[in-house]
């Protein structure tokens, strides 16, 4: 038997909402207390399960946005999909003190930790920032100075999730640089990019392929397809480009 398959069973665990944080007009962070949480690698996700009074259950996957250093506090950031079945309940109805069930951590390919080499190029579209934020927070918690660049595409300034924290972390001067592009609405005097991520932007914001960066791309499928293809065209080996696509189905 291959040892790699002998993994612990993923049990459903009760998780209590200890804090709800507004993240712009459409997203909320839920900080969950999960007794017995076994820990995770930055980039992994959880499955969340909700049960209706008649026994009907719905499950969705959410990336973990918190670093493993938060121990039994696991946070997820949920973008409200108006027509979704699960996300409006999580963003609007579930209050501090309420509980849900979750299990994890799940996944293990789209991960980065400080033991892995850099430089690290993170590319996010919308709520695709969430698993990348776990990496950025983990990097900060460990005092790592691995050269790291984040290129983050959002619709408007107010849609940027974790903006204050990103600004603060980038301001420390520990080798984290953050670039934004706003694709729909730019505030007056905006000095960042204002178009969809393209090859030229990746070339300026990213590292030269000769530096052998690890590129992690997360966002909606069209963005991930375009970015991953462009990174390979620029000369990055496909196995240094890891992707996580958010389907358009929402939840």
């Amino acid at each position, binding site marked *: 038997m*291959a040892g790699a*398959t002998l993994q612990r069973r993923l049990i459903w665990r009760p998780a209590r909402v200890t804090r709800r944080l507004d993240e712009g007009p459409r997203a909320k962070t839920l900080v969950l207390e999960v007794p017995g949480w076994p820990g995770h690698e930055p980039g992994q996700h959880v499955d969340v399960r909700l049960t209706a009074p008649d026994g009907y259950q719905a499950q969705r996957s959410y990336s973990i946005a918190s670093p493993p250093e938060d121990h039994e506090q696991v946070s997820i950031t949920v973008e409200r999909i108006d027509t979704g079945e699960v996300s409006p309940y999580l963003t609007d109805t579930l209050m501090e003190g309420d509980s849900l069930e979750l299990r994890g951590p799940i996944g293990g390919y789209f991960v980065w930790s400080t033991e892995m080499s850099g430089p690290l190029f993170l590319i996010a579209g919308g709520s695709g920032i969430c698993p990348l934020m776990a990496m950025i927070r983990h990097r900060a918690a460990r005092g790592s100075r691995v050269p790291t660049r984040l290129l983050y595409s959002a619709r408007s300034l107010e849609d940027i999730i974790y903006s204050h924290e990103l600004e603060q972390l980038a301001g420390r001067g520990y080798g984290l640089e953050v670039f934004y592009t706003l694709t729909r609405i730019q505030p007056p005097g905006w000095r960042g990019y204002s178009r969809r991520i393209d090859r030229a932007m990746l070339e300026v914001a990213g590292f030269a392929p000769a530096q052998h960066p690890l590129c992690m791309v997360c966002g909606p499928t069209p963005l991930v397809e375009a970015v991953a293809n462009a990174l390979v065209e620029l000369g990055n080996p496909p196995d240094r*480009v890891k992707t996580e696509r958010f389907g358009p*189905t929402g939840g």
Partner: protein
Amino acid sequence: MSPAPFQGRPRDRASADRLPPGQYLTRDFPVLSAGPTPRTALADWTFSLTGEVDQPRRWTWEEFRKLPSETITRDIHCVTKWSKLDTVWEGVSVDALLKGVNSSARYAMAFSDGGYTTNIPLEDLTGGKAWVIFAFGGASLVPEHGGPARLLVPHLYFWKSAKWVRGLRLMAEDEPGFWEMYGYHMYGDPWREQRYSGD
């Protein structure tokens, strides 16, 4: 104070018996892959049978497309919770590819461009249960959905239906593929909700 209960969508009885536990219906076709979409020119494409076989076999794209093909309509179920009903595919059955092959193997490892692999028992690939697909919804399979060719094993979670498939390695013993090594289930039956190791 007790929280407002989760209600969920109105239950749809017609589709409910076609939805495995924990799944929801989608009309889109989401894309999930771990890396960039590989692009292989048809002139360079081959499909191989390797491993525990009397003699390895290999088809070029032209040879592969001359094999008898069929149109298949099936429901598909992704481990990320979406299901899609009545998807229409065109492809060559694995039975047709294994015709005349002598092997005592009980498992197969599908392998793909980009390095992806996934393991499947041979009895789940034979007897009209699996195909190597070249068209979806009446059109050539696009690269994002695994083109030029992908495996289709619709009775298992969709990660078993390897995109960009280039062959099958027949094996005497079961071995974990790409996602299986990261803790996904070795078999992956959606009706028994075998998402992860130990389910």
